[in-house]
């Protein structure tokens, strides 16, 4: 049996997990399913691409770092892209979600996020066309690492980056005052105000974190696969599955859920055939939820 699916699954699982962190936070703190979250990934990737172009115009061409397909402009551009994507999310919240949230009906906010998703996607197609583009067109050599598994330098760096981002997020949520305030708000918004928490600040932090991580995941998809206006939409359902599987509100749960979905999809592609890819993820989701309705890391008392 070929074990290559493990690397493929870990990679796609990391990307799904990074995206799912934003979904799980939005759901547990702002209390709605944000269907525009995938489009934050796409906007993050295109935004980063545009910043790279701007850097290129300013400083000319730069050499890639070591064996990687990209150089420092991509790293700098990603950081700027994360800020831009966070601004986009805050703008959407100000224009749309905050006003509807105040009226108190979650389903209306969800429908608005559907609309926002379509608008964001159409706007990308209008500006950048729907044909795929790339951060780099170079072909990378995959390095054999034993047991018949091969991994490219880009893939290794993406896995390491995911580990760093997820660890940082976990520490942030468990140790920082803002993280504590976010957890408190998700458990009881009224009590959060009673203990002096500025709830508008918690809402902003949620958007900023979710959007910035979506941008990072979008850039990684762009590096490893390609950039398309539909890239986020394609990942939306696996991301929701990961968030639910891991237990709504749990950052480690979202990442673990992402890895389980990524690995099982990759295994399904190899063992049964690519047409089963989506079905397998959802079969696993259903099986886990039958045994643990609150998800792997979810808590019954909510």
């Amino acid at each position, binding site marked *: 049996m070929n074990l290559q699916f493990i690397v493929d699954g870990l990679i796609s699982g990391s990307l799904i997990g990074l995206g799912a962190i934003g979904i799980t936070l939005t759901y547990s703190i702002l209390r709605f399913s944000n269907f525009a979250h995938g489009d934050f990934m796409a906007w993050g990737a295109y935004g980063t691409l545009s910043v790279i172009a701007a850097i290129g115009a300013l400083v000319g061409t730069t050499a890639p770092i070591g064996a990687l397909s990209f150089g420092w402009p991509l790293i700098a551009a990603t950081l700027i892209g994360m800020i831009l994507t966070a601004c986009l999310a805050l703008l959407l919240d100000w224009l749309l979600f905050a006003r509807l949230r105040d009226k108190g009906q979650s389903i209306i906010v969800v429908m608005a996020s559907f609309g926002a998703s379509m608008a964001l996607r159409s706007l990308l197609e209008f500006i950048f066309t729907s044909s795929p583009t790339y951060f780099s067109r170079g072909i990378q050599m995959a390095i054999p690492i034993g047991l018949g598994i091969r991994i490219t330098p880009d893939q290794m760096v993406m896995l390491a980056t995911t580990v760093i981002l997820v660890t940082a997020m976990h520490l942030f949520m468990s140790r920082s005052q803002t993280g504590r305030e976010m957890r408190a708000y998700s*458990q009881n918004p009224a009590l959060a105000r009673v203990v002096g928490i500025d709830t508008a600040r918690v809402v902003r932090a949620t958007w900023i974190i979710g959007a910035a991580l979506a941008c990072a995941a979008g850039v990684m998809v762009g590096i490893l696969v390609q950039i398309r206006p539909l890239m986020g939409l394609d990942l939306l359902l696996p991301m929701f599955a990961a968030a639910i599987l891991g237990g709504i509100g749990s950052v480690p749960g979202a990442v673990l859920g992402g890895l389980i979905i990524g690995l099982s999809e990759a295994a399904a592609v190899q063992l049964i055939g690519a047409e089963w890819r989506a079905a397998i993820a959802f079969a696993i989701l259903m099986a886990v939820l039958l045994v643990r309705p609150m998800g792997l890391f979810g808590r019954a008392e909510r």
Partner: protein
Amino acid sequence: MSILDVPILDVRGLIAGYEPGLSIVKGASIHADEKEIVVILGPNGAGKSSFIKAIAGLVPITGGEVLLDGKDITYGAAHLRVRQGLAFVPQTENIFPLMTVEENLRVAGGVLPRAEVQSRIDEAYTMFPDLARQRKLAAGSLSGGQRQMLAVGRALIVHPRVLMLDEPSAGLSPKFVEMVFTRLNEIRRAGLTIVLVEQNARAALAIGDRAYVLVEGREAHEGRAATLWDDPVVAELYLGQRRHA
């Protein structure tokens, strides 16, 4: 009383309700002086909880005034009132069940200088040693009495000037009821003003200085806590059938 004889908390003709056009609090007025324990009594459904929640900024106010040390905070955000020194302990759901005891205390210290948070938490542990023993436990696993202590300890983290509590003794065993009221008395002696909504009139009046009886969203009577018990008007309003129970 402060130098200018301004009550530390002065609520005048408050009108508040959950839905537009439907007032639950209909022009209620109370005031509390420094180091005073003010008790609010009243029958079920009189609007005591709504009143105190409105003062805390949790129920929309449509009329009247809330003055904290002379400063108008009627329409301020709830979290700002806490920072200005007006703390509130709700009756139910007053802890974050999935956070540890220590996190519950720490989360309330967001506005304090970082270096001070730990010493404030230690103050809460000194006041309620049970909490210190359970600092690492999820607050959801505490007993009713311990939850109440945690909620009070957390409200005190910011060193408020006025502490408002909604039926802190509800559902507690007699041992905990006594403990809660003893602590409240100590807190007052330390310099706080306390506004206490209570069903347990006997215990509340025992530590209270003044009391109001709230009926149908308005204060219907005010008096010294010590004599309120025997006031015939109050007996008729509210206490009558229970006085000798």
